[in-house]
């Protein structure tokens, strides 16, 4: 168990709603949910999650901390914003789901090996390295995430697509040498580090 998680349990005891309000992006809006279920019916990945946003919000109020933070539901969000524009109480549902995913990930409680959790982590690290996304390396690292053998298998399966994109000049093979970046990369990294430091301090992620 991470220190941040132990500290959070100690600090908020049985008041999980309070914990979410304090530490999850837009978490203060959770209590506005009136349980109508429009979000659940609007989600393109509806058949695939364990808990709908509606259920997640009620579970937060009911103090189901382990079930919420261990749920795969937040990682099924495609950021289509359908639930958010339809919500009659105007909850920023998409942002709350992202916020919960981030919080569960940072506490080490999010499901291990969840493909979107892993891809999101890859994406962020890839984007932050040079300040721009290196699409070739992102793709390669994604396919080889499970090791060499499964990577070769998966990459071969997608070979025609990759080759097609390459032939159409939509995937630059030279990006394998590190790719392009932003000006003042040092400054860019300093901004990200400082922002993370402030956020970690506020949300209790620092040991």
């Amino acid at each position: 168990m991470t220190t941040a998680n132990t500290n959070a349990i100690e600090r908020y005891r049985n008041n999980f709603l309070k914990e979410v309000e304090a530490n999850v992006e837009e978490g203060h809006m959770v209590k506005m949910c009136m349980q109508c279920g429009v979000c659940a019916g609007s989600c393109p990945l509806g058949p695939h999650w364990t808990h709908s946003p509606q259920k997640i919000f009620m579970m937060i109020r009911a103090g189901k901390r382990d079930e919420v933070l261990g749920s795969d539901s937040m990682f099924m969000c495609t950021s289509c914003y359908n639930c958010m524009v339809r919500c009659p109480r105007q909850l920023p549902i998409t942002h709350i789901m992202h916020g919960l995913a981030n919080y569960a990930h940072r506490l080490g409680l999010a499901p291990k090996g969840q493909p979107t959790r892993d891809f999101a982590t890859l994406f962020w690290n890839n984007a932050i390295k040079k300040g721009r996304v290196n699409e070739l390396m992102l793709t390669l690292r994604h396919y080889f995430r499970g090791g060499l053998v499964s990577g070769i298998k998966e990459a071969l399966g997608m070979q025609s697509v990759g080759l097609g994109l390459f032939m159409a000049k939509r995937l630059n093979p030279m990006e394998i040498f590190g790719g392009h970046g932003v000006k003042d990369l040092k400054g860019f990294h300093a901004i990200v580090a400082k922002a993370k430091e402030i956020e970690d301090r506020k949300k209790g992620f620092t040991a």
Partner: protein
Amino acid sequence: MQDARHQADRDSRTGTAAARPVGYCEGGELPRIAINARNFAQAETHLPGQDIVATCAACWLSARESKERLDGSAQLLKETNEALAAAGLHYNGGANVRHMVEVLIEDFGYDGLKAPMKKSLEGLKIAGYVGCQTNRPFGIDGESFENPMYLDKMVETLGGEALSKYEQKVTCCGGALAFSEPEKSQKQIRDIVESAYDHGAEMIVTPCPLCQANVEVYQSEINKKQGTKFNMPVVYYSQLMTVAYGGSAKDAALDGQLIRAEKLEKIAGK
């Protein structure tokens, strides 16, 4: 938040990946907002008084959302500026963030888009696939979330025929989950392409670069796995405009298609 209009995104000169869509694990709130604010600060300094215009739906959404959050919270602005100070930057709250489609529809207008036309896209039946992020949560002024009409009007302005019915117009293509959850996303893509076929479309047009890539690129995968025979060209709206304005197939980057848009190439070659 849904009602607030007219803000923006990523400057191509200072452009940073706006890592909202799938950056939510490692990134977090302030780092995400700070990298957007870095772009705003650069735009304020180097291009004072000018709008920031994004061509990517996700970049627009991420930047505009960050800007609205910063506009709405003095505390967040203070913390963001603390982070920016690490690189000697400061954000004063300016720099309007807009999507290119907003500029075209709201500033130029349909008559303005018609003016430079050299060729009509007459005879082309086109499914206007709007998708998610140019439509929700911000969208184009005066349009509905459930049935936005601007893309169809744009097609008709250029002389093409828009579908009067297209159930999958605002369906999600799976977005970044096309990578991490291929089966689930390909179900979405299948619906989008199938509905276009059902209504007799000859190609799909979209204002979102990721929709364009997902809906075009994965058709061969879906064919392989599900025995369909999809071969539906998917183009970006600017490719239609280029051809209508007299550009060649190469000017319109039609040589970059995985599924060739032959009818559009033919018009371009006339």
